[in-house]
């Protein structure tokens, strides 16, 4: 892709966002986002993948681990707020950087909507204790029938709370992540340990596998939904910009995050499939299998599992529901923060207007983006609920899977490309499985794992497009709408649409490393650039 001279140099490490996230905060920021996904995905995947839910989580998890390792390398190398959008921009240029950015932006708005809906779902776990059945609180609105109005109103109120919290500032929300995150991890560990020791029956689990295996299409649908259990790694790369010494901290926190989240998600699936859950009757039909019952409770599956654990279930059920609601709210909050960081990054690189970039005069937070993308999330929520009863979570999850798989695919391609286009940037962490070779006096390492990762994500994307009726239309429609805006904005600014703006990445990388206080890496980077320049001069002299 050819490059274009910018009207004003941009893309430097400008001041604007504050650096105040600690090591633990960085981990919990990621955990709050990724760890909460299981609370949403479990019921959805159970309903689709039936007795093979564990396998669906396992397969999606393998892809996720590769994505996570790729993010770890890129976030440690380029600790900037843009995450996947920035990596793709660096590797593949403006156009693909914009596509990745818009796909991830879709995910963040859906993140706000989906996790707020799920949070309200866990709150509704308590309604039967007050003699209220949330499933009965439905009404018809014009052509829309069976709209769960109570759940909808709850969700919209939660999103409004998040707007207020985020405009007030990141300090409060980060601290909230950290405290609640510890409680949630402790509870999840306790629940899984108690569950596997006291309530898990391997015979039931085996029966699910042998007698309740889903059709190929349902299994694919389930696997593509299972990937949403692992979405959110963006947040740790975004937190990298606000973490001191990110090159040291990011690999440690994100590798721990990747594997712990994978184990938690798969553990809940395996545990749920091997439990004896009370049979339920809905509209005259009896549901007896664990996957059927958890599929019925898409709104609060983890609480249903906790409630079924002997002895502690009476307390563990409501406790897990309350914690689930809290961590899902934090996850929705991460969506608000991530959307504002992504738009901040996109505006700096002339993908969207700098109008989005303005920070609040009093609170120094990106109030405009917080409001705009949260309102978009509210609209998405409204539309999802208007589709009818029990559809909201499915619809939002469909779109979530599309945005995530598109963005991740581009990140893998960017990772491979950057190993060649930017071999001089120090990489404190590299994905495993690299093939070393030399070309024109320069040594390179080709990441074989990125090829497997790209194939895995491409497979998930294929499953999404094939099996997700809403996602395959709404997802591309969102990206096209964003592209329309991009064309209008770039033309108005006199910037190329298809080509990239010329940027001094080397200078910017030095600024990023300096700002991140990675002085060792900065020295190594400068030395590498000087060595390259020396070789270039020698070659030129020899040619003369």
């Amino acid at each position, binding site marked *: 892709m050819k490059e274009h001279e910018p009207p004003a140099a941009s893309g430097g490490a400008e001041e604007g966002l504050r650096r105040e996230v600690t090591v*633990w905060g960085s981990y919990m920021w990621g955990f709050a986002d990724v760890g909460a996904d299981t609370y949403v995905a479990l019921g959805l995947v159970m309903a689709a993948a039936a007795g093979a839910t564990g396998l669906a989580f*396992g397969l999606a998890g393998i892809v996720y681990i590769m994505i996570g390792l790729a993010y770890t390398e890129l976030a440690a190398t380029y600790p900037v707020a843009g995450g996947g959008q920035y990596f793709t921009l660096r590797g593949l240029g403006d156009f693909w950087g914009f596509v990745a950015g818009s796909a991830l932006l879709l995910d963040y708005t859906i993140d706000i909507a989906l996790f707020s809906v799920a949070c309200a779902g866990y709150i509704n776990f308590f309604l039967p204790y007050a003699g209220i059945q949330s499933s009965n609180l439905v009404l018809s609105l014009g052509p829309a029938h069976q709209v769960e109005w109570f759940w909808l109103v709850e969700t919209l109120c939660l999103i409004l709370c998040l707007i207020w919290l985020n405009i007030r500032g990141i300090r409060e929300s980060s601290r909230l992540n950290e405290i609640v995150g510890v409680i949630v991890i402790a509870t999840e*560990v306790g629940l899984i*340990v108690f569950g*596997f*020791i006291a309530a898990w029956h391997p015979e039931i689990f*085996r029966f699910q596998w042998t007698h309740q295996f889903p059709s190929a299409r349902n299994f694919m649908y389930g696997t593509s939904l299972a990937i949403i259990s692992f979405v959110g790694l963006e947040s740790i790369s975004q937190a990298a910009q606000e973490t001191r010494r990110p090159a040291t901290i990011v690999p440690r926190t994100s590798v721990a995050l990747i594997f712990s989240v994978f184990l938690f998600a798969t*553990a809940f699936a395996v545990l749920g499939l091997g439990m004896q859950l009370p049979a339920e009757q809905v509209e005259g039909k009896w549901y007896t299998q664990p996957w059927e019952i958890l599929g019925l409770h898409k709104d609060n599956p983890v609480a249903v599992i906790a409630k079924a654990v002997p002895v502690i279930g009476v307390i563990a059920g409501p406790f897990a529901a309350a914690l689930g609601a809290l961590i899902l709210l934090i996850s929705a909050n991460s969506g608000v923060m991530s959307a504002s960081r992504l738009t901040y990054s996109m505006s700096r690189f002339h993908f969207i207007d700098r109008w989005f970039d303005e920070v609040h005069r009093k609170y120094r937070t990106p109030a405009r983006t917080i409001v705009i993308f949260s309102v978009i999330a509210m609209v998405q929520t409204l539309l999802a609920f208007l589709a009818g009863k029990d559809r909201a979570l499915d619809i939002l999850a469909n779109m979530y899977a599309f945005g995530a798989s598109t963005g991740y695919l581009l990140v893998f391609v960017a990772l491979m490309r950057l190993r060649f286009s930017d071999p001089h940037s120090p990489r404190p962490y590299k994905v495993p499985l690299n093939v070393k070779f030399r070309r024109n006096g320069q040594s390179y390492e080709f990441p074989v794992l990125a090829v497997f990762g790209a194939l895995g994500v491409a497979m998930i994307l294929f499953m999404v497009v094939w099996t997700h009726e809403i996602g395959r239309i709404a997802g591309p429609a969102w990206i096209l709408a964003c592209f329309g805006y991009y064309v209008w904005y770039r033309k108005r600014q006199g910037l190329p649409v298809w080509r990239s703006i010329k940027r001094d990445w080397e200078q910017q990388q030095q600024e990023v490393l300096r700002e991140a206080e990675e002085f060792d890496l900065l020295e190594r980077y400068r030395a590498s650039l000087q060595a390259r320049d020396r070789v270039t001069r020698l070659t030129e002299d020899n040619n003369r």
Partner: protein
Amino acid sequence: MRTLRPIDRFQILTTIAYVLLGAVILLRAAAAQAWFGCVFGAVMLAFGVYRAQAIVRARREIGR
């Protein structure tokens, strides 16, 4: 050697949980011939052992 911070204790506890639980799941699944359960138990056990090694290595480095 540096005293354990709450976060270190938390990590050690979760690591022990991974190892013990992984072993329990592996054995119980093997007894019931639930092969996917065996795989999952083995993965959890392996992760616990990996974390335990990392913690021991980190403690030794701090000690030096």
